[in-house]
């Protein structure tokens, strides 16, 4: 997209730190989240979930549940669309979502939904699902990624593999990616040292505090409304319509305030179920997941098994790199193996590089995106090997990364050449930071890692309307998961020249704007921001036109300055500046409402890099790890609201600390999830975290009018590796499996001691 009037300095509002617009609502309880909505006559839904990891469904008997007093509807798979067909790989994604929402012939994991009840109270609904009788034939199951690829592994679904998979692989291997360039064997032959190692990471959950919740109302006339907590309500509209045989536009979806998403709310789970129940009961139906359901049935990230080999010269030059990345994505295709592979070596300018990714199915919940899906695990494996090479060759880890860093014009490991990027700037800032030069105390270790993510644009529509009093209201279609309403208001203020506080940004429903892609891919401040700027420019053009009419001069003789229409030059005439509010006060009589629009698919998101520094201590007796200092350095392109940018940096680091040290899905031999609650699935508490320092680097993205790059995902790419490098240094042994929980550290120390 060609950009006009790009702005790189002289900002009045952008870059300031005003109060967040949703702050009062959230601290007073006025904000309405997914579970806060009610409707007259509302029923409560509950879902029966499989206790088995893998079983054939012979029969579902719902008669006893239907007969229970207070039960108004029961649905199973037969109540959903029958014209959604299975296809291999990601071509069958709509069928995959349907199969995940409500099981068909088999249950595929512990927690898989297979029936649902709507009743007059939540208690009755929960009691009623216990009366649903299911006749199963139990099948062998597999939950480990390496075991799922073995010859004798149980087959999750024949025919799920697409044509990318080479012959000879198990049917559970459903997609294959290979890319790279050069000759890695020749590159390795030129190295002074080659290190090859293997790594594993466990699945982790996005851990959003707000469980999935929705209120659906659907009549037999095919008209419906849905209120839900989601990162993308147009996607929810489209998918629910497909799964229920509705006309898309007849279903209006409104996004609630959202209590965290991190990628986990980019699909539907309970929403089509609530609508199916509502259609059958002819009443609104509300469903709220329990935390256990969230863990058992919604998307964790993939677990991985990875092999990485890197060759390096004594001066730190990387001569070649290769990696094999196996990702388990649950009982459906879609594990982001291609992104793990493509991100793995992206920070480095390599002549010889090759990466392979495998998407592998297992009897686990359908994986969902989690902040830069696939990239953090790749960084863990690659940056661990680079750390070992630096140590073995006596080289400084930042100097080595600087020596090999990708820059503008580098042929990326995944193919194309990079445009303007800021990796070197993040490494230089890390090297100059006080953290890097501060001596460690005894028993502490320091880790460094770089990280990379692509970022995304996507379909976007924004409307900006002026009010008679000179204030403005922005309607955007991207749910605010990271402070975007503040950023939109700041960008609109910059263009309109009116105070930030005079602008209200609202997340519009699906009936109000054109299709907006999900809030994912770190796209919102980039894409909705770009659209907001363009919509504001449209408004400014219309304001100038009204001034020109008033002054009876040509439109192009008027320009916009500091919130006022002014003559564009001496020849345009001598008129006093005409403020925005004086134009809007009379707009009904001078041409009607003034509204600006912009609809497009911005395509210049701009990739992003970060460098993290971590200091850690390890208690050699108990295996407990403490992160004592953490610094995030990341390229934001241009920070619109720096406090929110810093919050994204800190949030990525905090989630990375949990992923690296404690969080994991633990399955028993029976294939059941053993830790489906926050007591046993340990996310970091405030007391676990140090102050996370942040440094915002700004290397402008040429694809955005102000230079913005998305920041929401890249911050979780380096932490696993940086923490692993710090912990390994402190423990005195390379940690190759995440999480580095106390039992694993104790076992590693024992193996070191035992030789």
């Amino acid at each position: 997209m060609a950009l006009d009037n790009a702005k790189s300095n002289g900002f009045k509002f952008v870059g300031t730190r005003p109060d967040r617009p949703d702050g009062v609502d959230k601290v007073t309880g006025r904000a309405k989240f997914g579970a806060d909505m009610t409707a007259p006559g509302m029923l409560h839904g509950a879902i029966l979930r499989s206790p088995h990891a893998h079983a054939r469904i012979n029969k579902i008997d719902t008669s006893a549940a239907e007969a229970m007093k207070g039960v108004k509807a029961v649905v199973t798979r037969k109540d959903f669309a029958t014209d959604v067909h299975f296809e291999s790989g990601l071509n069958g994604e709509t069928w995959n979502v349907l199969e995940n929402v409500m099981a068909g012939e088999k249950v595929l994991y512990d927690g898989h939904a297979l029936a649902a009840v709507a009743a007059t109270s939540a208690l009755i609904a929960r009691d009623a699902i216990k009366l649903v009788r299911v006749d199963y034939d139990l099948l062998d199951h597999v939950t480990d990624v390496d075991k799922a690829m073995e010859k004798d592994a149980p087959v999750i679904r024949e025919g799920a593999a697409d044509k990318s998979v080479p012959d000879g692989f198990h049917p559970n291997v459903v997609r294959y990616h290979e890319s790279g360039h050069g000759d890695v064997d020749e590159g390795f032959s030129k190295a002074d040292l080659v290190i090859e190692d293997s790594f594993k990471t466990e699945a982790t959950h996005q851990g959003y505090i707000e469980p999935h919740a929705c209120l659906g109302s659907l009549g037999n006339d095919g008209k419906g409304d849905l209120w839900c907590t989601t990162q993308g309500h147009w996607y929810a509209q489209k998918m629910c319509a497909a799964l229920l045989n509705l006309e898309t536009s007849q279903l209006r979806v409104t996004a609630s305030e959202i209590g965290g998403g991190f990628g986990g709310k980019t699909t539907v789970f309970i929403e089509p179920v609530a609508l199916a129940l509502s259609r059958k009961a002819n009443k609104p139906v509300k469903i709220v997941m329990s935390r256990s359901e969230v863990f058992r049935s919604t998307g964790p990230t993939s677990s991985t098994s990875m092999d990485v080999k890197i060759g390096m010269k004594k001066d730190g030059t990387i001569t070649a790199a290769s990696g094999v990345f196996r990702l388990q994505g649950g009982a459906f295709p879609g594990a982001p193996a291609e992104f793990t592979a493509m991100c793995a070596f992206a920070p480095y300018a390599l002549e010889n590089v090759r990466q392979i990714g495998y998407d592998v199915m297992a009897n686990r919940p359908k994986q969902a995106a989690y902040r830069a899906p696939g990239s953090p695990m790749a960084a863990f494996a690659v940056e661990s090997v680079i750390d070992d090479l630096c140590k073995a060759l006596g080289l400084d880890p930042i100097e080595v990364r600087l020596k090999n860093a990708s820059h503008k014009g580098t042929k990326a490991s995944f193919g194309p050449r990079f445009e303007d990027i800021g990796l070197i700037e993040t490494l230089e800032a890390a090297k100059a930071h006080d953290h890097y030069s501060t001596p460690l105390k005894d028993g502490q270790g320091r880790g460094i890692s770089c990280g990379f993510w692509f970022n995304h644009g996507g379909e976007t529509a924004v409307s900006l309307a002026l009010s008679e009093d000179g204030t403005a209201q922005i309607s955007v279609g991207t749910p605010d998961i990271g402070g975007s309403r503040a950023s939109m208001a700041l960008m609109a203020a910059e263009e309109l020249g009116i105070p930030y506080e005079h602008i209200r940004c609202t997340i519009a429903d699906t009936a109000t704007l054109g299709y907006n892609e999900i809030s994912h891919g770190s796209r919102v401040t980039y894409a909705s921001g770009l659209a907001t700027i363009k919509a504001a420019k449209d408004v400014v053009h219309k304001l100038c036109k009204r001034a020109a009419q008033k002054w009876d001069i040509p439109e192009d003789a008027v320009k916009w300055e500091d919130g006022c229409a002014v003559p564009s030059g001496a020849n345009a005439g001598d008129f006093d500046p005409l403020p925005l509010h004086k134009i809007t006060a009379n707009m009904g009589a001078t041409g009607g409402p003034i509204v600006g629009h912009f609809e497009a698919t911005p395509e210049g998101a701009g990739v992003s890099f970060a460098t993290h520094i971590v200091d850690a201590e390890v208690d050699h007796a108990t295996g407990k790890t403490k992160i004592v200092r953490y610094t995030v350095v990341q390229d934001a392109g241009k920070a619109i609201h720096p406090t929110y940018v810093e919050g994204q940096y800190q949030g990525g680091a905090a989630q990375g600390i949990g992923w690296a040290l404690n969080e994991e899905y633990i399955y028993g031999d029976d294939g059941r999830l053993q830790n489906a609650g926050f007591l046993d699935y340990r996310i970091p508490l405030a007391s676990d975290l140090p102050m996370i320092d942040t440094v915002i680097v700004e290397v402008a993205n040429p694809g955005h009018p102000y230079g913005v790059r998305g920041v929401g995902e890249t911050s979780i790419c380096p932490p696993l590796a940086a923490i692993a490098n710090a912990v390994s240094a402190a423990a005195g042994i390379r940690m190759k499996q995440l999480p580095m929980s106390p039992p694993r550290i104790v076992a590693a120390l024992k193996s070191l001691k035992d030789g």
Partner: protein
Amino acid sequence: MVKVYLWSGLRSLTDGKEAVDIEASNIREVLDGLQNAYPELKAPIAAGVSVAVDGKIISSDLTTSVSEESEIYLMQKLRGG
């Protein structure tokens, strides 16, 4: 003619070729040309692809222009968090 580089995993669908010459002036013509030349590419393209043109990753816009000087890579479509 423009040269379109494919990720290696597609080689089995393109007679072993990692780069394919296509007559095209925009991304729509690139994708149509690839599918006409190698019908087996229809499925992976339908599953979702992005096209990198001179380093800029185009995820949707079929009207983006390409020329003989363009560096063009077919990539799998981004699914972010």
